[in-house]
Every structure is written in structure tokens, then in C-alpha cells.
């Protein structure tokens, strides 16, 4: 075949057509041949592995499903039925409430559910399409919700400050959702709608904030009146436990460690010596000490230096310790991301006249954090698992709760089943986070070929 068209005086180039690849190199058969049976040794290893997998899976299946006891009132009943050849899931379902809420009273559990439900609902607009101002909604959820949730969980008397914060929380929750529904339905922002409804749209732009402030004040006043009628009993943090405590500690740790880590990482690269020395010492001190030590220091040593009138709450001390520790780690993760940003990005931003903070928030951080997503989520997963260490200082987190069950006379010696359940629960939590981070990487990286 000739590529040259001789009849024309000009030489015309025609590329050869593409042919399909040879058979047996593509598709399922090609894959199996290439990856599993490429040599006699590989074929042998494949068959051996399949056998090992079969043995493990079939025995586990028998123990966990076929021979398992689902209903019983004590471990003795389980043992009488199947001995050790089947799992005693009754032991897990009997204690399920404690695994999730600790020793929180049954009739008050709705408060925990309501708190977490509110938080999820508050964050939900972040994942909905066509919603604008997502960052403001997310930030309000993270910054203001702890006051509302903290009151729901702990209850009791509330001072004026807490009352104001709770009312602000209710106000911003309502505004977040009003804005979300409005922007999903009409594409307009709540701000614009309020301005229009109040008839201020014809007036100069500087006055537009007044009707919005007025609307905020009205909702705030209603919220304040409403919440002052709330009367819920005080629940000591000693009763908190299980998954509830694990999520509270790791959730606050995650929410604090990322911004704190960013600030520390920037401080470490600062040109101002005082800030730099402080950040370097903080990071290096807490990175070179095990988390257990930090927890012990916070829970047993710190109270010795405080006046007796202050009686610190153990879970608060543990949360502070976890936050400090994870911030130091996060700072190094973020610094790694910052160092991956080419110098040219800083120079281009400077040449355009951006100030340091604008350069960092608009140019450097978005790129660095995107690069860092796998590492940041890795730290979050590590943090979630590290919170099991708070059991050492006597907080009944999920792990300690799972182990405590085996001390009960009725269920004496039941270790495996609760721990298997705990492992599955941790796996689900961590796997969801990991998958979400991969999803984030894909969506944030969309359309940005070449980087």
C-alpha cells in the first residue's frame, strides 16, 4: 500500500488506518492470561491462593453466619447451643445501645440523635447541587454548631453566653436552609431575596445590608425566646461513651486540626522569627511525644497546676490533648503540600499585586490542599483510630465499651464478637472516609489535565 498519491502533482500524505490489537491480549481472557497464568509458577501460586482464600472464607462464613446464635440472654445460653463453633451475636445486639451511646440514659438518647441529625442536616447543603455560598454554610456548621450540640448533649443550666450562642446557631441553621432551598429553586441568594422583599433593591447598595440585619435580628429574637423555654436535664460527661464519644472527640479533633495545622504550617514558613520559632517548637515538641503521653499530661498533670476551684472535665482535657497532637501532625502534612507548589505560582501572584494572605488563600492553599487530600484524609483516619487511646485515661470510648462487656457476669468472657463488631464499624467509618477522599480528588481534579 502506498501512502503517496501519485496522480496529483502535489504529494498528499495519508496516514495508515488503525487496526484492532491481536486477540487474547484484551478482554477478560487476556487479563487472566497476563496476570494470573503467565508462567507455571504464577499458575501454581494462583491456585494456592484461591485455596487459602476458600478455606478462610468458608470457615468464617460457618462461624459468623451458619452456626451463629442471634438470640440469647447470656453467654452461657450461646455456649450451650453451639459451643465455640459459632458466633454469639446476641452479645452484640444486647449491648448495642451501650456500644453507641455508652451509659447515656435510654430516655435521653434522642438528644444525641437530634444533635448528630442536626449537624448532618446542617452540612447537607454542601453536597447539594446549585447551592451557592457553600463555604459560608460549611463554616457556620463547623464554627457555631458545637454550642448547640454541646448543650443538647450535656444539658443543664445555660448561662447568657451559651443562650446567645445557641440562638445564633438556630438562626444560622435556619438561614442556611432558607438560602439552600431558595438557591436550589430559583438560583437567587437569600441576601438578594431579603433585599428585594423589603423593597430596598432600588436604594443604594450600601444600604442593602440593613434589611438583612433586620431579618437576622427578628429570627434571632424568636430563636432566643424559643430556646429559653428549653429545659433538659444535665447529663454528666461520665455517662457519655461508645461510638458517641469516639465521634465527638475525633470530630472536634478533625475540625480543629485542619485550620490549626494550616496556621502552624504558614507560621513555620514565616519570615518573622518569633512566630517561626513558636510554631517550630510547638510542632516539634508535640510530634516527638506519643499521644498517650500528651493525654496523660492533659488529664492528670494539668489539673495539679490549676486552682482547686477549677474542676476540669476529663473529656474536655482529652479533646484538647487530641487537638494539640493532631494539629502538630497536620501542620507537617500541610507544609509538605506547600512545598510542592512551584515558586512560579508565588511569583505570578506577587507580580499581579496580591497580598500575602490573598496569595495564600486564593492561589497556594487551594492547590496545596488538593495535592494533600490523600495525606489529610490519612491523618483524619489515623485520628479516628487514635482516639481509642482515650480509654487509657478512663473515657469509655467505643473500644473500652466493647471490652467492658466481657466483665458483665451474664456475658463473662465474650471478647471476640464485640471486637469483630468494633473492627467492622471502624472499617466502615475509615473506608467511607477513604472513598470520599478519592471521590474528592477526582471531582476537584476534573478538567485540569496536565497537572
Amino acid at each position: 500500500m502506498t501512502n503517496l498519491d501519485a496522480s496529483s502533482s502535489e504529494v498528499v500524505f495519508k496516514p495508515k488506518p488503525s487496526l484492532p490489537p491481536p486477540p487474547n491480549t484484551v478482554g477478560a481472557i487476556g487479563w487472566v492470561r497476563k496476570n494470573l497464568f503467565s508462567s507455571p509458577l504464577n499458575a501454581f501460586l494462583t491456585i494456592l491462593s484461591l485455596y487459602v482464600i476458600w478455606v478462610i472464607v468458608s470457615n468464617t462464613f460457618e462461624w459468623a453466619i451458619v452456626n451463629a446464635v442471634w438470640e440469647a440472654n447470656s453467654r452461657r445460653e450461646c455456649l450451650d447451643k453451639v459451643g465455640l463453633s459459632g458466633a454469639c451475636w446476641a452479645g452484640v445486639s444486647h449491648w448495642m445501645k451501650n456500644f453507641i451511646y455508652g451509659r447515656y440514659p435510654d430516655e435521653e438518647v434522642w438528644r444525641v440523635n437530634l444533635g448528630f441529625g442536626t449537624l448532618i442536616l446542617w452540612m447537607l447543603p454542601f453536597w447539594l447541587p446549585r447551592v451557592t455560598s457553600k463555604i459560608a454554610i460549611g463554616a457556620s456548621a463547623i464554627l457555631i454548631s458545637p454550642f448547640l450540640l454541646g448543650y443538647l448533649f450535656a444539658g443543664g443550666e445555660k448561662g447568657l453566653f451559651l443562650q446567645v450562642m445557641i440562638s445564633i446557631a438556630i438562626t444560622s441553621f435556619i438561614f442556611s436552609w432558607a438560602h439552600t432551598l431558595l438557591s436550589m429553586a430559583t438560583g437567587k441568594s437569600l441576601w438578594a431575596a431579603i433585599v428585594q422583599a423589603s423593597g430596598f433593591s432600588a436604594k443604594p447598595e450600601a444600604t442593602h445590608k440593613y434589611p438583612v440585619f433586620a431579618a437576622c435580628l427578628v429570627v434571632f429574637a424568636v430563636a432566643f425566646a424559643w430556646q429559653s423555654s428549653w429545659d433538659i436535664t444535665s447529663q454528666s460527661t461520665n455517662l457519655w461513651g461508645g461510638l458517641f464519644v469516639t465521634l465527638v472527640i475525633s470530630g472536634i479533633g478533625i475540625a480543629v486540626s485542619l485550620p490549626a495545622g494550616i496556621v502552624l504550617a504558614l507560621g513555620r514558613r514565616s519570615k518573622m522569627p518569633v512566630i517561626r520559632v513558636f510554631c517550630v517548637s510547638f510542632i516539634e515538641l508535640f510530634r516527638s511525644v506519643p499521644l498517650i503521653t500528651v493525654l496523660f499530661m492533659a488529664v492528670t498533670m494539668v489539673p495539679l497546676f490549676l486552682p482547686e476551684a477549677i474542676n476540669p472535665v476529663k473529656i474536655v482535657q482529652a479533646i484538647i490533648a487530641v487537638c494539640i497532637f493532631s494539629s502538630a501532625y497536620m501542620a507537617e502534612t500541610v507544609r509538605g503540600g506547600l512545598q510542592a507548589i512551584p515558586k512560579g505560582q508565588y511569583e505570578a501572584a506577587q507580580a499581579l499585586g496580591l497580598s500575602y494572605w490573598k496569595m495564600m488563600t486564593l492561589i497556594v492553599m487551594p492547590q496545596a490542599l488538593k495535592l494533600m487530600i490523600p495525606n489529610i484524609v490519612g491523618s483524619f483516619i489515623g485520628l479516628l483510630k487514635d482516639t481509642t487511646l482515650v480509654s487509657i485515661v478512663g473515657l469509655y470510648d467505643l473500644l473500652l465499651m466493647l471490652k467492658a462487656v466481657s466483665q458483665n457476669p451474664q456475658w463473662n468472657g465474650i471478647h471476640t464478637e464485640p471486637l469483630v463488631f468494633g473492627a467492622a464499624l471502624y472499617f466502615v467509618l475509615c473506608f467511607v472516609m477513604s472513598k470520599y477522599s478519592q471521590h474528592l480528588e477526582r471531582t476537584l481534579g476534573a478538567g485540569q489535565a496536565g497537572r
Partner: protein
Amino acid sequence: MSMDAQVETKQTVKSTKGDEVVIELAGVNKWYGEFHVLKDVNLSVHQGEKIVICGPSGSGKSTLIRCINRLEEHQGGDIIVNGVTLDNNLKNIDAIRSDVGMVFQSFNLFPHLTVLENCTLAPIWVKQTPKAEAEELAMEYLERVKIPEQANKYPGQLSGGQQQRVAIARSLCMNPQIMLFDEPTSALDPEMISEVLDVMVELAESGMTMLVVTHEMGFAKRVADRVIFMDYGEIVEQNTPEEFFTNPRSDRTKLFLSQILAH
């Protein structure tokens, strides 16, 4: 190099352009550690003047123009841009950077933003231009560099020449009075150099004050009012392009020209 020759040529150049001096460098010195990279550099740039700076690698030509908008700090002498003295005062630095645009060898577009967002970012965040107005302005400049159809793509989806034209548009969106070009075509494939040079020629014809570090001698011959040759951190020779290319004075210049024009 003789001082008389320099003064003489400067005066001949001056007659063709506006009298207003927009950039004044007086006795500028700079060191990288022990290395003396700029040695007592004096230079006056007039309104609307196009200057091409050439010289062998390591001669300090990039450093020189990077000092003008404070990407590098000079350690001796004075740099005055539009009457503002460049010192550690952040206000002065900001004032100068808002008057001076810069185009880099490696484009340095922001990869996480679209072409349009690259162009509107600085107007919106530095000059507080309303978004719609900034976008209109950006589209105007993207049309001027002939890539309005790429506005919603990301930089990574464009060719090198297109990226560099976006970078030029991005700088122009800040309405600078002076443009600095740091080897704008050195990182480009040969077939893309001319599309960038075309944009630069068009910009030069519109009367922009330009300082261009480049080895594109054809560009220098076509648009430069003055060609500056640097070596070892000094301005060895400066002259009109005709004189510079046909009648170089110093032997160092002759050697350099023979090397780059040999092929």
C-alpha cells in the same frame, strides 16, 4: 565600554520617545550570597519605550527586570518606578506592582483556575472590580491575544503558546503601564514562538512601555527602540537595533552576536 558612548546613544533614543522617565535605575547592586549578580547598573526607561535586553545566561538580565517589581530585592542603589521609590515599604511595592505587569518564561498560570478566572482574579481581589466588569475586561484582552474561545478551559488543556498568550492577557487585565517579559518564548516549541511574538508586536505597536529579556533577535530588530547587552552583571552596551546589530562597539558584543546569529 565607554560612558560617553552610552550617554550619547541614550540621547539619540530619547528624541524619538516621550520625555517622561518611567523607570530609573541608579547604581543598582545585588548579590546572591557571595556572587555579585548586578554591578552598578544604571538605566532610564522612557514612557512608551521598548527595550530588549540580551546577553549570555547568568549575565543578570532576568535578575535586573525581576528587581523592578521586587520579585528580587536589590541591595544597593535606587529603583524608581513612576516616581515611586522601591524600598521595604509594602505600600510602595504594591503601588509599583499595580503599574507593572510581568510575563514569565514558564507562564505560571494558576492551574486550579480556568483561563477566565486566571484573568479576573487580580482585578477582582486587588482592584475590587465587580465580577461582571472584570469578566468583560478579561474577554476583551483574551480577544486581543486571539483566544477568547478557550476562556472556560483550564491552563493544562492549552498548548504552551496559548498558555503564554493567556499569561499576557492576565497581566494586561490589571491595566499596567509597563510590561516586563522574562524570556517569554524560551520554553515554547518552535512553531508556537511566532504566535506569542505576534501578540507582543501588537502590544508594542499600541504604545506600551516594554522591557523584554529575549534571544529573539528578529523581534528586537522589529520593535525595539533600544537593545541592551549585558554580561557579568553589567550593561556592556546599549544602542538602537540598527547600530547594535550592524555596528557593535565592544568585542564582547561582537562575540555574542556572532554566536547567536551564526546559524
